[in-house]
């Protein structure tokens, strides 16, 4: 770990000021906010992140870690711990996909430390990114190349990649958020703003070292998840090598509203396979208005993976991803919901 200046902000507005050096969406900015630290400290120890200034976002008080559920939707404070949200009875009942995406992530210890805000900003697990002794990594050292493309890439992305970077977005919670059309509440130098979660992370766009659309000093303060008929019939399916404490090799967040036999609404988020949190509206469109069957699920899965590109070790992923989507959809359809749900 390299030396750095450690600062505690008295409140969020002061943190915004101290955090001006976080730059515009840049992964290795000279200033970093510290929340639970389970990504940041890890990467500082590996010397992947070498910030000169670390600004501690001390638990800034109830509104920022509160969980509110109303008929209009849920508001999840960005400083809530993963474990608190995963265990919340209202979230479990009305937004099971969110609770599951958190419950199935990391370990109990990490979930007790880590915050929702930090979680969505976790960095890729690409081994070439996480070890600075590899010289080629465009995400870590812009312009240096990508060692993963011709290297060991078993758990690298197949969607949204280009020749600059094939790293994968590793988180689970973000997949549920993007599927449910969540919005992110931000506090910055010019006050607060609300943006679609889908626009928080950027695509590769030839500059993999830029990962978000956050402005300098901007802090995530909450996630807003709109209510909908589909949120209760939802689940997060995570396929991984071991039974717990492991990232996905493929995952799907699905939410369905079914009336009679017909799918009225479908939401599909994909993890463990894409460069950024991924939603497949192509797949959703195939399902909407039709009965959900093995073959319509397969057609949706095929549409979702249409643009997939493998690089050798991850050539298995499109097939695994399709199966994951089909399984998730059929399991969601089979869910027995208590009265009043669709």
């Amino acid at each position, binding site marked *: 770990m390299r030396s750095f200046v450690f600062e505690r902000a008295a409140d969020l507005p002061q943190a915004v000021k101290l955090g001006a050096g976080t730059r515009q969406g840049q992964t290795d900015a000279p200033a970093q906010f510290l929340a639970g630290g389970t990504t940041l400290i890890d990467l500082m120890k590996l010397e992947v992140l070498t910030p000169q200034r670390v600004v501690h976002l001390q638990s800034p008080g109830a509104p920022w870690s509160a969980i509110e559920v109303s008929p209009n939707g849920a508001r999840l404070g960005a400083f809530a711990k993963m474990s608190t949200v995963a265990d919340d009875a209202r979230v479990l009942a009305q937004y099971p996909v969110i609770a599951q995406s958190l419950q199935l992530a990391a370990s109990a210890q990490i979930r007790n430390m880590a915050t929702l805000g930090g979680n969505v900003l976790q960095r890729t697990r690409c*081994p070439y990114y996480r070890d600075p002794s590899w010289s080629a990594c465009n995400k870590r050292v812009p312009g240096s190349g990508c060692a993963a493309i011709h*290297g060991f890439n078993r758990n690298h992305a197949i969607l949204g990649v280009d020749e600059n970077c094939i790293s994968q977005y590793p988180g689970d919670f973000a997949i549920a958020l993007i599927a449910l059309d969540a919005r992110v509440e931000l506090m910055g130098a010019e006050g607060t703003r609300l943006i679609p979660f889908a626009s928080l992370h950027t695509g590769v766009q030839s500059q993999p070292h830029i990962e978000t659309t956050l402005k300098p000093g901007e802090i995530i303060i909450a996630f807003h998840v709109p209510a909908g008929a589909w949120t209760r019939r939802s689940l997060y399916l995570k*396929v991984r090598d*071991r*039974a717990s404490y492991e990232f996905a090799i493929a995952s799907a967040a699905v939410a369905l509203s079914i009336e009679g036999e017909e799918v009225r609404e479908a939401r599909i988020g994909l993890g463990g396979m894409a460069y950024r949190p991924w939603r497949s509206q192509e797949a959703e469109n195939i399902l909407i208005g039709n009965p959900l069957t093995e073959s319509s699920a397969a057609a949706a899965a095929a549409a979702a993976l249409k643009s997939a590109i493998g690089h050798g070790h991850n050539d298995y992923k499109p097939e695994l991803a399709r*199966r994951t989507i089909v*399984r998730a959809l059929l399991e969601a359809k089979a869910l027995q919901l208590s009265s009043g749900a669709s």
Partner: protein
Amino acid sequence: MRDAENLFGIPTSRIDGVDKVTGAARYASDEPVVNPAYGYFVTSTIARGRISAFKLDRAKAVRGVLDILTYQNVGNEAAPPVGPDGGPTTTTLESDRIWHDGQIIAVVVAETYEAAREAANRVEVVYVEEKPSASFDSPGVESVPHKPQKSPDPKKGDAAGAFAAAAVKFEARYSTPTQHHNPIELFTATCAWDGPKLTVYEPSQFMWGTKNSVAARLRVNPEQVRAVSRYIGGAFGSKGPNPRTVWVAIAAKRVGRPVKLVPTRDQSFTIATYRAETRQHIKLGASADGKLTSLIHEGWEVTSRPSGYNVSGVESTARMYACPNIATAVNVVHADRNTPGYMRAPPETPYMFALESAMDELAYELKMDPVELRRVNDTQTDPVDGLPFSSRSLMQCFDQAAAKFGWRHRDARPGVMRDGEWLIGFGCATACYPSNLGPAAVRVSLTPDGKATVGLAGHEIGTGAYTLVAISTARSLGLHVDDVTVHMGDSDLPPIMVAGGSNNAASAANVVVKACDELKQRIAKAAVDAADSPLRGADADKLTLTDGKLLGPSGESEPLARAVSRTGHRIEAYAEYIPEGLPPSAVADMSKGNPLMLGGAGRKDVAAFAFGAHFVEVRVHSRTREIRVPRVVSAFAAGTIVNPKAAYSQFMGGAIWGLSSALLEETEMDEGSARYINDNLADYLIPVNADVPSVEIIMVPEKDERVNPLGIKGIGEIGIVGMNAAVANAVFHATGKRVRELPIRAEKLL
């Protein structure tokens, strides 16, 4: 044979358990030394080439840096290292040569760990890089037949002819991946000089080996070197004499104070040994009723450029089943890698995977129950040497484990057993491990208050060795385990064989019981000769030490305190145990760092092996193909069990590691650069609790009068053996898909 049943078999908690869980147990890097400086390794970032220059200015500018060792300033201060096979091996600071990625090329010494690490980061190295060869298929590797270490590769009859003529033939190729031990305690070393005397605090599974190897490389008299390692946080074969320690010793000499070095986890993937990847080819010929007529087993193993190290597991696979025609061969493939080394059941883990998978495949070809195939080929005679097995309870293990597992509920057809969306598969396989023995020496003393003290340079590698020595002493002298103080992990104590090849329990127990018997003899002799003893005139050989008393054959007794006082304030015995078959000089040779082990397969009188059977249920999701193992039942017969409590854990830990080696563990490599990828515990997967919901162990009673005086076979390694095949066999049964390349992951079943 000594009456081992009366001595052993009582489940006993570890005498060091409280110290371990409270943090009081001192591991090597916890040993306090005065005013230490801290070392940090600089390792190479290329796998092949030469160092053309070091740029050290920026590193030296870091405040607190005391010294930087490179080949340029210390290269000729140490004799070349010796590999795990006794031959040449990859070097570190001896020259400008880079043999492998992550090779130690410099040691930075500073006032603090942080300064040393910061400076190490600033060392710039200019390389002349050459294209490395990573593994089997890389251009530039060199494959040659291995040099058999002791005896020629097992061979008998005309295997090729018998295979050609066989009624049923089966042939396949298998492979096993690179794996790393990853003991939680890292490969630390602390060196402190006191004038000409050096103390090395370092986790070592061979105290006298570390002492001698450090002395030899420093070209000093072994008397000057002491190795201390009271507790070892996992070793699994990775913590013997090594190429690293001398540089820490040299650094300590140069800076004139102790140097402590704790490497990082990722460095530990390249500065120590590992299990090399193998490829294997098996041919089995059988008659229609399943009797083997031919076994041909050939292996290929990766090693470094200079080392011929290999594990040659055909030594064991050739001895598993009755078969009149056997041919085996082993090849080493030299690549630009560091030298591999022993890792839990080094030969059997990879080679039994191939044999036990092939046996399962043959059973399907024959439409036979795999358990029955083992039964028709079971034998009480070593098929290679024709010697009797000292004992072999393989089928008892199969039958007891099968009954507990519910094997009879198996539908033999692959892919038909289901629970909803999950496919269910049952699989089984044989476990085996040679019962090896080593020389050992010990000093035991007893005082009239009924307290015993035992000293030998044994190794607490986490197996419960302190407790085993305490049990052996207590039970021999009629004391409680709490009355025994055990000193180990110090080369100032009498030597014992390397804690490897699962020999240490048998070797230590035999030597301790021998010393205790001598104490008892002397106490008894004094009593029968004493005018004031109720045992006066009794036959000394018939007296026993029981419950704090010296007891005569017809019930007359004397308190231990009186009987011991008669011999003085403290009675002490020194004993050596040299297994029959080793030369009389074995203890003396070992003291010079030349350990001679009596291999279970190398004996003149018997073939000595422990056996076992694993049964596994796997579940594979019919769509997404995740593989889960809800339950395991494993049975083992391994002679006398000294401490059933520790043995249960040892067997269970082995079985879990076997499962891990089947499904999860692989050190992945970047082919082009011959560098490891997942060199950390987040990415190198091992099972978590959710992966092993149920593991049941059966200890099949076995009395072995021939293996050694106490009938103890080692149990440290057998648990892992064959488990990988049992899992693969179960996966086939669940899915109809045979995976011959470990690890088995979802993508291989899509």
